[in-house]
């Protein structure tokens, strides 16, 4: 649970950061787009059946790390973007507790042998 809550909080922080740290475009626009995305995938991944969606946030985190270079950030926005990106990637790696087998999960839909293995 807590890894998902951390990334959700970081997503919400990105939405507020342009106002709090007082920086403008292009960093502000990018952060205001990435923030809702990261928070959304983090929240959906709270539930065990959709836990693997946590991995999507690693891509957004990687983008946050390279965005300052590609989009030409200045000042506090550079540090903020890279720092948040690093933490988001790290936290998205944590699988957490998954107790259910869910009949082999989503992969069982296109690879039925997974369903049989899960029932052994």
């Amino acid at each position, binding site marked *: 649970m807590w890894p998902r809550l951390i990334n959700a909080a970081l997503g919400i922080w990105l*939405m507020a950061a*342009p106002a709090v740290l007082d920086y403008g475009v292009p960093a*502000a*626009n990018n952060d*205001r*787009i990435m923030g*809702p*995305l990261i*928070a*959304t995938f983090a*929240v*959906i*991944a*709270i*539930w*065990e*059946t*959709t836990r693997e969606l946590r991995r999507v946030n690693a891509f957004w985190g990687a983008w946050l790390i390279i965005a300052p270079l590609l989009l030409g950030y200045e000042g506090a926005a550079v540090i903020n973007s890279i720092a948040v990106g690093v933490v988001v990637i790290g936290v998205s790696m944590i699988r957490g507790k998954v107790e*259910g*087998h*869910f*009949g*082999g*999960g*989503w992969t*069982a*839909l296109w690879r*039925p042998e997974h*369903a049989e293995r899960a*029932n052994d």
Partner: protein
Amino acid sequence: MPIIILALIGFFIAAYMALFQFNLIDSVWEPFFGDGTRRVLTSGISEAFPIPDAALGALGYILDVVTGAIGGRDRWRTMPWIVIIFGLAVGPLGAVSIGLVMMQPVVVGAWCTLCLTTAAISVLMIGPAMDEMLASLQYLRRVHDTDDRSVWRAFWGMDTAPVSASVQPEVTPDVA
């Protein structure tokens, strides 16, 4: 059941904002962002559809409430069609909400507290709706693989065979 309550709350908030967009009420509640809600709800994006976007949202939440409430706990196999409509309704509604949240500051240049609230509600509904969706899809896959039964008929719940314990999914739906 918690999903249905969330959807009902979402419906009431969206309906309230739609009343403002239809000019049936003069002002709209906004505790944090000044005239942010007014600016968002009267923006070009909000009026890009034939009817105001909050009214579309309200319709979406009603669809969630109805398709979330129909049927019993075993509806993942007795009526897969309603489970899949429910899952498809919850997913895109969340996606649209998040898209609008991105556009508020980037395109309109303002935040809207109630819009953020409904977006959060939409996102919270996705995860718990997906376990039931998965159970239905796995059930249809098994009908497809192991039986001479018709997936089409199973989808509409027309011949719901009892599922033996050994293949019953461990997914237990939260809703209904």
